[in-house]
């Protein structure tokens, strides 16, 4: 992790998220699972690290290694597994 960048633990905290980590579109979580437009995105996030920062929608620098991954937003820090 680069100096000055804060670390977030594991997956994205939906309560404080504004954007979908998979597709980058606005994400308010929907009224319930049935009306959640990002349901498929959440499934996809089982197979891929988040590529968009959920706070500011910037495309993140993602690095995947055999046993881990990091997604880094230049403004909001690093998400790690």
């Amino acid at each position, binding site marked *: 992790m680069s100096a000055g960048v804060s670390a977030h633990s594991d997956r994205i905290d939906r309560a404080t998220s504004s954007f979908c980590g998979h*597709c*980058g579109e606005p994400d308010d979580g929907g009224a319930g699972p049935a009306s959640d437009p990002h349901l498929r995105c959440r499934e996809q996030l*089982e*197979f*891929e*690290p988040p*590529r*968009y920062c959920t706070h500011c929608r910037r*495309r*993140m*620098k*993602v*690095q*995947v*290694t*055999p*046993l*881990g*991954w990091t997604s880094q937003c230049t403004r909001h820090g690093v998400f790690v597994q």
Partner: protein
Amino acid sequence: MTIQANLPTSYEILATARKQVLEEGRGLTQEQLVDVLSLPDDALPAALQLAHEVRLRHCGEDVEVEGIVSIKTGGCPEDCHFCSQSGLFDSPVRGVWLDIPELVKAAKETAATGATEFCIVAAVRGPDIKLMNQIKFAIDRINEAVDINIACSLGMLTQRQVDQLKDWGVHRYNHNLETARSYFAEVVTTHSYEERLETCNMVKAAGMELCCGALIGMGESLEQRAELAAQLAALEPHEVPLNFLNPRPGTPLENQGIMDGKDALRAIAAFRLAMPRTVLRYAGGRELTLGDLGTREGLLGGINAVIVGNYLTTLGRPATADLSLLVELNMPIKELQKSL
């Protein structure tokens, strides 16, 4: 009346394969492979069982475990329509380099799983001097830190680059055909099938092991899938990684859909019956195409190698899930042999 005569027409190919592939060690031809790929669902367990027997007889019970990592992700100038790392598509994958300490850490973690292979991959048409220097540096640092075979996948090579990699101790080089010659232009327009073959042939001629893979489920016909397996068999690669399309956002194949799981299993059996002695590796897309049970079915259906953990840009099953499965199936992990 013999048992063979009692078999339904669709099973005749399996009786032929039992004699030709299992007993005589000769892979099926392209036409025969079409028959395997066209088998009905009720013949699938028998096809997988036969492919498993072929693998056990001609390769043994060991499973080769490998980790792969991207030293340079994204921004590739090529247009492979399935690839999220092409810089020509509107893909969310950003260009990024992995630094050498991180690469060494990944190699150590990979070795700690019991893996004997570590493949360094770069999303490039072919390596430039800067990348070759990085690779040399990375190889030296990894060799200082951990005992593992190093493979590379750096796109198309010149003869000089082939020779350099060989000198630096790279024991295996990956360069995929991806799809059948007759379908190649549908999925790649910035380089040709022949250019890919050229690199594969140079690698083999230099004495490195060739790893040459397939990506199926891109809209090719069954005949083209059989063509691909036959073309790979003709190349006689040491290893064939078998990938299933994971349609990536922003790529031309994003709406292709995920291939049918049973078709994927038929393909596994067919590839094993085409190449009885090759290391046949489960690679990308297996989680999505076949779900959790697919790994077991594949390992009991002709597969004898796995990529452990994550892929280059997507995530795989947890390494521990695959490793415990190998224990449960009584399949030992292949041990390290620094052969080259």
